[in-house]
């Protein structure tokens, strides 16, 4: 049991989806892979298929078109899984709020577990969020062992306390 928890915390495979970002957040996400930040030292690797992923990183606003895709990708991921909303767009749609073509943050399509604000957030903040997400993976797996009613939003979500840029 403990071994599984350890493994889950140490090996978050992430899938990155750009819901309609300005690419600012995407660049910062990719920057996490570079030698300077090296997210792989925490076991996190970017992965191509949702069927392999533990964590979905969403950047940008959810709009009418990306909602369906985001939902589909989320559905294809297997439990336990967490969603991390990166940047203010994915969190609440930021300056685009109430724009005619924007539905809102990522939580308009899928249940979000970790929010990071910032426009864009710095790589440190993203890494912090991923590790926070990995911790949540453990919790989710426990829930599956002893099923309790799961609330996807509200008190269950966490906010990164790292420095937001």
């Amino acid at each position, binding site marked *: 049991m403990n071994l599984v928890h350890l493994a*889950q915390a*140490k090996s978050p495979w992430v899938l990155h989806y750009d819901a309609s970002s300005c690419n600012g957040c995407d660049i910062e996400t990719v920057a996490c892979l570079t030698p300077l930040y090296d997210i*792989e030292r925490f076991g996190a690797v970017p992965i*191509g*298929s949702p069927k392999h992923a533990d964590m979905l990183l969403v950047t940008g606003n959810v709009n009418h078109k990306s909602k369906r895709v985001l939902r589909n990708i989320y559905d294809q991921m297997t439990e336990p899984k967490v969603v991390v909303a990166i940047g203010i767009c994915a969190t609440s749609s930021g300056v685009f709020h109430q724009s005619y073509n924007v539905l809102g943050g990522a939580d308009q399509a899928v249940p979000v577990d970790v929010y990071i604000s910032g426009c864009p957030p710095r790589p440190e903040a993203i890494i912090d969020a991923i590790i926070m997400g990995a911790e949540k993976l453990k919790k989710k*797996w426990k829930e599956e062992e002893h099923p309790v009613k799961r609330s996807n939003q509200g008190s269950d979500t966490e906010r990164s306390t790292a420095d937001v840029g």
Partner: protein
Amino acid sequence: MSWALVGIGVLGAPLLGGLLFGIDRKITARLQGRKGPPIVQPFYDVIKLLAKDSTYTNRRQVFYLYSHLLWMLVALVILLTRQDFLVFVFALTFSEVSLALAGFATKSPYSHVGSNRELLQILASEPVLVFMAFALYLATGSFLTGGVFLIDEPLLFSYPLLFLAVLLVLTILMRKSPFDISSSAHAHQEIVRGISTEFSGKYLALLEIAHWVELIIILIIVFLFWVKPWWAGVLLALGAYFLELLIDNTYARLKLGTMVRTTWAWGFGLSLVNILYFTL
């Protein structure tokens, strides 16, 4: 070798292979100036995958995935018990064929691309291994792997060109650049996820474990080129492994056609020349 030892081998090979994969990732990271994941990272990954929920698309996919791992183990047992090398190649080929069929079992464009490529990888790598079986026979008078333990001169001395050919196809078998065509370890150069796109959870873990076993099999193949004294073979195998890591990190993936052409021109050619030279 007694069957108890074989049992230890079958259980130990994945562990050792996993560890080597961990070292691989660490070395790769260091070569790129990164800190890299802990050495036991592959085990974290597999344990996590085993604990994850799995989805499947149909029963045949599951069947062929198990078959992939199983025949990989059969191939390992044949090697460990020093049996016929040609039968070993057949078992290994069937294992790869099973993997391709597992990819084909789902009507998914990405896994199909991966499976088709996997088939071409078999096409590219199998001939050299079969040639190695013939080389074994010519050197020792027997197709049995055990034969090399009975001759005094290392196989490498009489088959240097074949060794080069084996090194060439090792890149394919180890799924390393520039020939990591069907499924790359690195996401950045893969169409979605290649052959494994549709595998999830514990089925993906099966695939990972099969990779570990495959790595050990590959190292044993290299080891056979220099079995006396044994540490020379081990050094040779580790040397080849490190060389592959270097190549992996310095080359981008090549095209499918390039792979088949290169291996058939060079791999096939070098092996054949070496065998003809030996027989004449």
